[in-house]
């Protein structure tokens, strides 16, 4: 039997327990809602405008850099697993791989695109 069955069971249990807790609270807790209770919390001040405000592009850029490096590490994990048995050539390949990506990081850094403001 695949070990993934256990992972599936874990997912199941991991869902059941929080759901159970929340359902229990839903059963036990009083429900006396009114419009004031349901207003958006903004330190007592009336909400102005739409909550879903537009964000700055910088969020996207950090997510982008993250994505690229994330995929890179995905490539590096199989490399790391086999590193001990593959010898020097594989090490050099990995280093070249990382260096190429560092070039990208340095570029974005130098061009001032990693600044938050």
């Amino acid at each position: 039997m695949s070990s993934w069955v256990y992972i599936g069971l874990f997912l199941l249990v991991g869902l059941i327990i929080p759901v159970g807790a929340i359902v229990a609270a839903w059963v036990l807790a009083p429900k006396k809602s009114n419009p004031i209770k349901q207003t958006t919390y903004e330190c007592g001040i009336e909400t102005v405008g739409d909550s879903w405000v537009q964000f700055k592009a910088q969020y996207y850029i950090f997510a982008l850099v993250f994505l690229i490096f994330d995929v890179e590490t995905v490539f590096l994990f199989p490399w790391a697993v086999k590193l001990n048995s593959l010898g020097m050539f594989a090490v050099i390949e990995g280093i070249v791989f990382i260096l190429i990506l560092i070039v990208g990081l340095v570029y974005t850094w130098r061009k001032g695109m990693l600044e938050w403001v």
Partner: protein
Amino acid sequence: MVPLSWYLIFSAALFSIGLFGVLSRRNLIAILLGIELMLNSVNVNLAAFWRYGDVTNITGQVFAVIVFAVAAAEVSVGLALVISVYRKRNTVIADEIDMLKF
């Protein structure tokens, strides 16, 4: 045991749904979502062929990993272009971005 054809039909269905999204959605980001579905269906095929072929021949998984890299590159550049277009023209509706005709 699940037959191979089930995987292939599943991936064909996923591909077609993605294709429908690409052809029919108005929003550029939604079009990219459709493309992601299509790329995923390709990966399902690759993994299925690996499993149902010679499992010691890892080529299918190598290709799938490379598809991940391609998908990452595609989506990052694609969304960057969408954001850039939005900044210039204040819209992400594909029909309104028709500069190609001029």
